[in-house]
């Protein structure tokens, strides 16, 4: 039972991070119908921006406790801003020119951007793993044998706040309304006077910022990062979005948690080797049984 609870705690922590990243996939897919393969790399770059921001703010590996919470907040915001800028750049330079093109063209472009960032990352940041600064000093609590840390609690709390904030943004603001209009029918939205380019840019900026937040939390949780970390994490987050029902914010959050818990349980009860495989088993299962995802609705193609 203790093992189970421990895996559940770990799973929810990782799952919260996946959820944050999944939001970006789901938003972009909802609006553009594009799998933004580069999103995992935006997450990776965001994490690195966080590292450099922490160092710039005077973080010392020897004295992590000297790094104040307000500074940690600045690190997070810097990472989010950096990632948002990267997201905007990608959209402007790579995706906008192929927006009207066949799906396959856009898909290959996205794969290309993903590879480009990944390999540029290796050149710029170096291929070796880097340890993430402990900008929040870890405190360990023992709750009846289950290890809970303040970092884990913080991760889940931040993720909840951001998901709720996004949900409010999408359903309570004009920007959100415009996004939903775009995802419903871009042509009609344009005719209604919605500045399509601007809304798409906002979608990328917000999604990317959330991925960077996920990156900082991932860094805190795993304390390690490398330029290729975006591949697997990005893939899992995408799967989370699909499992939850792509285009659906709550679905992405649910999918993230589900994937996180499933992989921790697999690691705990089966073997750590199959941790990554379970994600795809889940994906295939869900797509075969419920192609629109758990919370998604089927949208039939008009014939």
């Amino acid at each position, binding site marked *: 039972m203790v093992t189970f609870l421990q895996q559940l705690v770990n799973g929810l922590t990782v799952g919260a991070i996946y959820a944050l990243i999944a939001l970006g996939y789901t938003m972009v897919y909802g609006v553009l119908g594009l799998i933004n393969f580069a999103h995992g790399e935006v997450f990776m770059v965001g994490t690195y921006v966080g590292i450099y921001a922490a160092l710039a703010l005077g973080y010392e590996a020897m004295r992590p406790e000297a790094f104040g919470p307000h500074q940690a907040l600045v690190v997070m915001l810097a990472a989010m801003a950096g990632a948002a800028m990267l997201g905007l750049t990608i959209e402007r330079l790579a995706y906008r020119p192929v927006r009207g093109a066949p799906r396959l063209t856009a898909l*290959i472009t996205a*794969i*290309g951007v993903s590879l480009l960032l990944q390999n540029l990352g*290796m050149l710029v940041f170096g291929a070796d793993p880097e340890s993430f600064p402990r900008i929040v000093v870890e405190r360990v609590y023992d709750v009846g044998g289950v290890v809970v840390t303040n970092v884990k609690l913080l991760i889940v709390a931040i993720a909840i706040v951001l998901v709720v904030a996004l949900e409010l943004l999408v359903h309570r603001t004009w920007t959100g309304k415009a996004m939903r209009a775009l995802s419903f029918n871009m042509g009609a939205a344009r005719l209604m006077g919605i500045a399509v380019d601007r809304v798409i840019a906002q979608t990328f900026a917000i999604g990317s910022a959330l991925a960077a937040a996920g990156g900082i939390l991932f860094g805190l949780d795993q304390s390690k990062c490398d330029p290729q970390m975006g591949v697997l994490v990005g893939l899992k987050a*995408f799967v989370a979005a699909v499992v939850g029902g792509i285009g659906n914010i709550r679905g992405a959050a649910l999918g993230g948690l589900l994937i996180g818990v499933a992989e921790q349980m697999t690691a705990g009860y089966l073997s750590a080797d199959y941790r990554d495989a379970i994600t*795809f088993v889940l994906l295939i299962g869900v*797509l075969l049984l419920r*192609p629109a995802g758990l919370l998604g609705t089927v949208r039939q193609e008009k*014939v």
Partner: protein
Amino acid sequence: MSRWLRRGAIALLVVALCWGLDRLFEAFLVEYAVRIVIFCGLNAILAVGLNLINGTTGQFSIGHAGFMAVGAYGGAYTVVQLETWLGPSLTALPTFAQQAVALTSGVLVGATVAAIAGFLVGVPSLRLRGDYLAIVTLGFGEIIRLLFNNSETFGGATGYSGGRPLGLTTYTSFFWVALWAVIVVTVVAHLTRSSYGRALRAIREDEIAAEAVGLPTTRLKVMAFVVSAAAAGIAGALFAHLQSAVRPDDFKLDRSVDMIVMIIVGGLGSVTGAVLGGIFVAVTLELFRQWAEYRLVAYALLLVVLMIVRPQGLLGTRELDLAAVGRWWRARRTGGAS
């Protein structure tokens, strides 16, 4: 019957040509350059196979490195078993006969197991919308690699060398690669220039219309996927016997990316374009070996720029043959004259 006689003659001619080229390369090229031409052939097999599903059928797979791995491990395992079983009666044969027996069995088994893997992956994934397929194949490709990485039978991360200090026997020569390349190109070309080819292109362009004219779209997609996985398996088995061990790291995502670059440079849907793309990748890979870390950056940039500037690739869906070269030449001359 004259039809089969004529074909037999062509086959003999092809074999003779491959053999002649093989001798020529061995005699006049340094070992390093021979390796490049061998990789040109391997890449042609990979690209032409992948193009059948990604280009002609429009179902985008980015996990074909996984099928290449299955073919490589399956082929190597078969050959090692065969060598143990036949023992001295195999080594007593002349070199060419050894290659013929061992490599051919390896390639056939490699193709078969890769085709089976392709079927198992294809059946669930090909019911999905095109862009989900990309992700699912990527995932399967990674899973396949991880399975080999964790398999004790296949040596885990250090790779499979048949449990022998000297490792696998290097049977693969230009001759065999060229021969299999001709076979794969012929099979794929015959498929694409037939009722099947029309059906697959119809699926790529409009699945609803394809269904409405009676095409069993899922079955056809699975078929194309299986054939293309088998081609990757053939390349894998040949690749395995080029070196002393098969390593999981040879089948990382980079390998799938190389394949995608091949078919996109050559033109999605063009058989000859895929061959040219394969040669392009093999040559640039070697030319820029010392700047290896920039290679993938350059490839990625190439993909993005090509998609924006010329999404159909260099040849598009056109084929490059003598007639096309003739047309181009005439057009150029009349264009120059007027």
